[in-house]
């Protein structure tokens, strides 16, 4: 066994250790340490990606006991690609959001923030690599707790409220997921994905197993779609993403919800198997819910008055695309869904890291009426927002366009005319809706003139309540060159990733399809 095969294990253990280590460090040291080790992680993941694309996938026994008895992790091209992109986004979010982390988090708790970020990294890695559905559950719990932690860390009333709501729904999701795992274990007697799949494939068509397996999968699907925010369950999104500190918002929307979807997809593909999955009614249901999510998410986004809430609801719409791709089925459909995961992760983190900078020059207000002209006042952030918005709408050369193209191709490839018709209609309607609210926002931030508020929201509050204001005019301060670079470099990386996904989409799609082939 080559030494590179140990890297997936190292990414998990190193992240867990780093999380614990950060309790001992000071805030700033913790930040530099985290960035350093995440760079090492990205290097390792790149090595795994190259290794698997040359030598094929491999499983890695966790301990002395092989497959049905002990734990196991597995690495293929798709997992390595996902993990690497996730880590790049994580690193960029920390760097670009650092300025606001210092403002939003109390000085004595910054190191605890990095504890959570590192534990979250470990959970993301483990959920991507795992070949065992109970391991998936354990690390899903860590992900649940850390995601509430990085939301609550801002310590204002609204994040506390949002975190409580987010946690209640997340726990409901975890509980349903656990129920599903228990049912599957009871039916098959295994927790590892490969023997579980073998048993399910063997017994699925017998009368005794079909209904319980379907119920188990249904429960798993509901649990994970609550967590990732599929249509009827997306009401927690605006508060969660809208009030969190920018790094948390980027990480939560770009990585956490995607990790849940990736786990669900792994269960569909590796536990149930595509042949059985495509005959299940669940597939049709998530197809329909995905489309409804696309449309209703966009409609909700249009009605919002604040830019962050709009971007948050646009997440709901984009998550709908992913579920629609899984619902279309076929290798092309799954590949399109995986591509959309990457495209949306890179774009949404870009948007969430931009909006606070636009707000900063608009009296700290995220309301559209105050944002007028902010793109002119803050040219760099405006430009990045432009890129993100164009990608979301689906303009060619950006990632969002390729994703939509792949969905259309996948639908055309499926021999079901109804799916083709529904997908095309949904894509058309959703693109128009996306364009309506994103272009409206672009016009708003690029039209000249100052918006409604000349004074900051805290100041308004102070005036309203006759308090003496000790709040400075705005959070904007003179930035040093280093501060600019700290923002520009990660943002340029995200923009570049967007362009790579858009311009070189066939290469990425090839990688994803090879990964899917290794999944069997």
């Amino acid at each position, binding site marked *: 066994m080559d030494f590179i095969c140990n890297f997936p*294990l190292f990414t998990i253990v190193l992240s867990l250790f780093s999380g614990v280590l950060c309790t001992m460090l000071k805030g700033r040291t913790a930040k530099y340490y985290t960035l350093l080790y995440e760079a090492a992680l990205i290097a390792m993941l790149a090595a795994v990606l190259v290794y698997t694309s040359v030598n094929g996938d491999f499983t890695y026994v966790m301990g002395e*006991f092989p497959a049905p008895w002990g734990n196991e992790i597995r690495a293929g091209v798709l997992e390595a690609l996902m993990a690497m992109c996730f880590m790049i986004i994580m690193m960029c979010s920390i760097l670009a959001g650092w300025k606001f982390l210092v403002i939003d988090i109390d000085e004595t708790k910054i190191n605890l923030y990095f504890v959570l970020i590192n534990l979250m990294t470990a959970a993301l890695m483990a959920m991507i690599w795992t070949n065992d559905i109970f391991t998936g559950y354990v690390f899903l719990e860590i992900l649940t707790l850390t995601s509430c932690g990085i939301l609550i860390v801002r310590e204002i009333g609204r994040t506390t409220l949002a975190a409580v709501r987010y946690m209640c729904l997340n726990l409901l999701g975890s509980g349903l997921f656990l129920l599903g795992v228990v049912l599957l274990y009871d039916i098959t*007697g295994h927790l590892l994905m490969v023997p579980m799949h073998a048993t399910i494939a063997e017994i699925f068509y017998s009368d005794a197993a079909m209904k319980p397996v379907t119920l188990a999968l249904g429960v798993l699907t509901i649990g994970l779609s609550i967590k990732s925010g599929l249509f009827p369950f997306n009401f927690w999104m605006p508060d969660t993403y809208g009030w969190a500190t920018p790094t948390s918002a980027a990480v939560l929307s770009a990585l956490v919800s995607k990790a849940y979807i990736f786990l669900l997809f792994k269960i569909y593909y590796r536990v149930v198997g595509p042949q059985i999955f495509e005959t299940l009614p669940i597939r049709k249901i998530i197809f329909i819910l995905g489309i409804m999510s696309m449309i209703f998410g966009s409609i909700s986004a249009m009605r919002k008055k604040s830019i962050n809430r709009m971007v948050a609801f646009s997440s709901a719409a984009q998550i709908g695309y992913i579920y629609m791709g899984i619902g279309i089925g076929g290798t092309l459909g799954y590949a399109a869904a995986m591509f959309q995961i990457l495209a949306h992760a890179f774009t949404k983190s870009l948007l969430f890291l931009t909006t606070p900078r636009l707000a900063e020059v608009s009296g700290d207000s995220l309301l559209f009426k105050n944002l007028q002209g902010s793109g002119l006042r803050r040219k760099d952030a405006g430009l990045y927002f432009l890129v993100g918005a164009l990608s979301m709408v689906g303009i060619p050369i950006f990632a969002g366009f390729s994703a939509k193209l792949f969905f259309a191709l996948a639908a055309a490839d499926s021999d079901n005319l109804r799916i083709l018709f529904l997908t095309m209609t949904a894509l058309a309607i959703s693109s128009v809706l996306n364009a309506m609210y994103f272009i409206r926002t672009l016009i708003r931030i690029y039209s000249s003139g100052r918006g409604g508020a000349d004074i900051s929201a*805290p100041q308004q509050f102070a005036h309203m309540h006759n308090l003496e204001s000790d709040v400075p005019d705005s959070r904007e301060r003179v930035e040093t060159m280093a501060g600019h670079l700290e923002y520009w470099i990660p943002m340029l990386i995200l923009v570049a990733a967007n362009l790579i996904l858009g311009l070189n989409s066939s290469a990425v799609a090839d990688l994803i399809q090879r990964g899917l082939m290794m999944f069997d």
Partner: protein
Amino acid sequence: MKNAFQRWLDGDIDLMANISDAAREHDHARADIKERDKKIAREIDSRRETVLMIAREREGLKMVYDVIAVICCVLVILVFMYIIAQLPLYGAENVRATTVAERYIEHGLEETGAINIVSGMILDYRAFDTLGESHVLFTALICVMILLRVDSKNQRKGFEDYYATMRETYFASEKDTILRTIGIFLVPCIFVYGIYVLLNGQNSPGGGFSGGAIMGAAMIIFTSAFGFDRVDRFFTLKLQTYVTFVALSFYSFAKGYVFFTGANGLENHIPKGTPGAILSGGLILPLDVAVGLVVACTMFGFYSLFRRGQIGGSLGRINS
């Protein structure tokens, strides 16, 4: 008109609207706040009619929601009962579902060296899951710390006198003779029992999680009987951080080493020992101790954070 609950779900209603985001509002003298509350109450009283009307309307909608919720729950329960009735009976012959469990029972002792099969399973066969599980506790402690540890953002200025009085009157357990006398007898016994459960995890039911919980309970009883002052002498934030750090990183690296050697086909040089002796079961004993320490620290940490918003005596953090 939509129900308040529905509006809360939609995110339109803002339950925190009356609570200021800034800590500034708490700077007001309490008298001012009281005055304002009275004013609001008067205002509500003066509009009693509308209030009653809204309340009645809400009552009606709430009933609809309740009915729907009950129907949904009953449906879910029925579906689950129907499906579970179709599953194989517990204990019935079920070849396909018991291969893994049989191996654990038949070969567990010789392969892990632990008489307690459960310990062998969670700390040897499926140690990776338990590695994650012990970090779940740690994550929970960090989240509670973020939420409750007093800092510049969440301390309630202007309420210091209130908390001081509370501490003197309500929490003054030192004067409680019954608690103290019982504590003197009970705490050592519970501690010893916890250590026993912890160290015998590989031989009898018990292990890190249960032993640690018992020890944490002993710490809590000790604190409520003798007060925080005594505990602060030996249990500080620094100690808690170091213990957790050492225990969890030992866990990660020991298990990382076993995973590494196991996957690469190397020998791991960890002796299994004689089954039944204290020193047996390979890594199970040291891992149990590590988990137990983390669990004890976490339990006491929760107690301390919930009761006074800090761990250990000083308010500062470990490295300031």
